[in-house]
């Protein structure tokens, strides 16, 4: 219980700092917009084809923005040796990690909610028609991105070339998650409902989240001790 309370305090602190300085959220949101614009030049597509790649497009943008957000997660604590202070505080390692993941989750969610309407607007895609199901996929996949991302943010925080190493580690691990999210999102944007074949993708997302949340909460003790 105490651990959860510390996690909540850390998440709150991170969100507060970020919403005051807006250093990573501004960068991630503008980056997402730039990528969306670039994609419109990269592909010259008809309406049908556009719907066929819509899920892939959206999740590429989200995962790029996600890497920017999680990168700051632990790096934010480096100045003034804040990380050492956090680690020597009574809060257990898993609650520091959980707090940071939750903060990154909400930050990425904000960026996603900003870029989703822009995506619909630029590409003439009706994203509101299945919004309930789409929101579920977004929540599940975003948690997956942030939980793995925050673990690797902790792993790479003291590593040389941190900004380069994080994506090299993060994206290959995220591939199954992204395959699932992209497929389901494409189907939902195309007007299909969440059922039949899409259930398998949804199960994959839940499985991914469960496995990596458990693994990260357990292994973070080893990461933050060194």
């Amino acid at each position, binding site marked *: 219980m105490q651990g959860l309370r510390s996690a909540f305090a850390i998440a709150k602190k991170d969100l507060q700092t970020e919403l005051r300085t807006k250093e990573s959220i501004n960068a991630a949101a503008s980056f997402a917009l730039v990528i969306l614009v670039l994609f419109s030049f990269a592909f010259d597509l008809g309406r049908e084809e556009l719907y066929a790649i819509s899920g892939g497009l959206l999740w590429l943008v989200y995962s790029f923005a996600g890497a920017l957000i999680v990168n700051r997660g632990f790096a934010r604590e480096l100045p003034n040796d804040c990380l050492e202070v956090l680690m020597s505080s009574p809060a257990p390692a898993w609650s520091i990690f959980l707090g940071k993941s939750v903060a990154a989750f909400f930050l990425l969610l904000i960026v996603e909610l900003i870029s989703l309407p822009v995506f619909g607007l630029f590409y003439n895609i009706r994203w509101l028609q299945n919004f309930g199901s789409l929101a579920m996929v977004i929540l599940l996949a975003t948690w997956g991105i942030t939980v793995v991302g925050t673990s690797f943010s902790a792993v790479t925080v003291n590593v040389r070339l941190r900004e380069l190493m994080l994506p090299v580690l993060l994206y*290959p691990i995220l591939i*199954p998650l992204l395959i699932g999210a992209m497929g389901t999102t494409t189907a939902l944007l195309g007007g299909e409902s969440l059922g039949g074949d899409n259930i398998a993708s949804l199960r*994959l997302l839940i499985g991914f989240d469960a496995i990596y949340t458990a693994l990260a909460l357990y292994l973070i003790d080893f990461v933050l001790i060194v």
Partner: protein
Amino acid sequence: MREKAVYVLGLLAAFVMIFNLNTVFNKLPDEAMQGAVYRIIFIHVPAAIDADIFFTVSLLTAVLFLVTRKFIWDSVTVSCIEVGTMLVFLNLVTGSIWGRNQWGIWWAWDLRMTSQLMCFLLYLGYLLVRPAIAEPTQKATLSAIVAIFAYADIPLVLMAIRLPNVRTQHPGPVLETGNLAPAFRAPFGIGILALLLMGTALVLVRLHQETTRREIDSLRRELHAA
């Protein structure tokens, strides 16, 4: 003692491999549909199977390192991952050559090919991040965690690429159905053994290098500290 073991294993591997290549090239008949090129499976499939063996060992030794904190387990992990990654690469290249000959293309996004490529990228991430960490204990701990994360991804990748709407082109699992011609079984098994012996010899060589490197490193540290 260790050097002798390397030489014995290396020689044994070379002998078994030459013996097997002789059987494959000089004794086995051409396959009815594919002609001579089918012989690539005696390298292609054993490389994949042996890579899986080395990756599984690397997972066990990564966990052992985290539990016991003995550096020898870290050395075994990195050696196994290097050899495993090399074998996956061999598997990808031989498969690609076969594909070019039989399908007319070098690469298809088939489920098995995709999963092998992901596996290659995951462990490439491990091999890239490792040299970027300077402090020895940190290097060993963090790379053990990356190794565990990478291995946990393999079942998810396998699940993701089996989702509906995924293209399949790779030949069916001949081994599981028992459709491999009796004459091919022995060279196939010996092929697995040959690469396994060769891989083990390479792991031993790498292990020796790692131990020596660690000794030099600690001597250098002592010198700097003095």
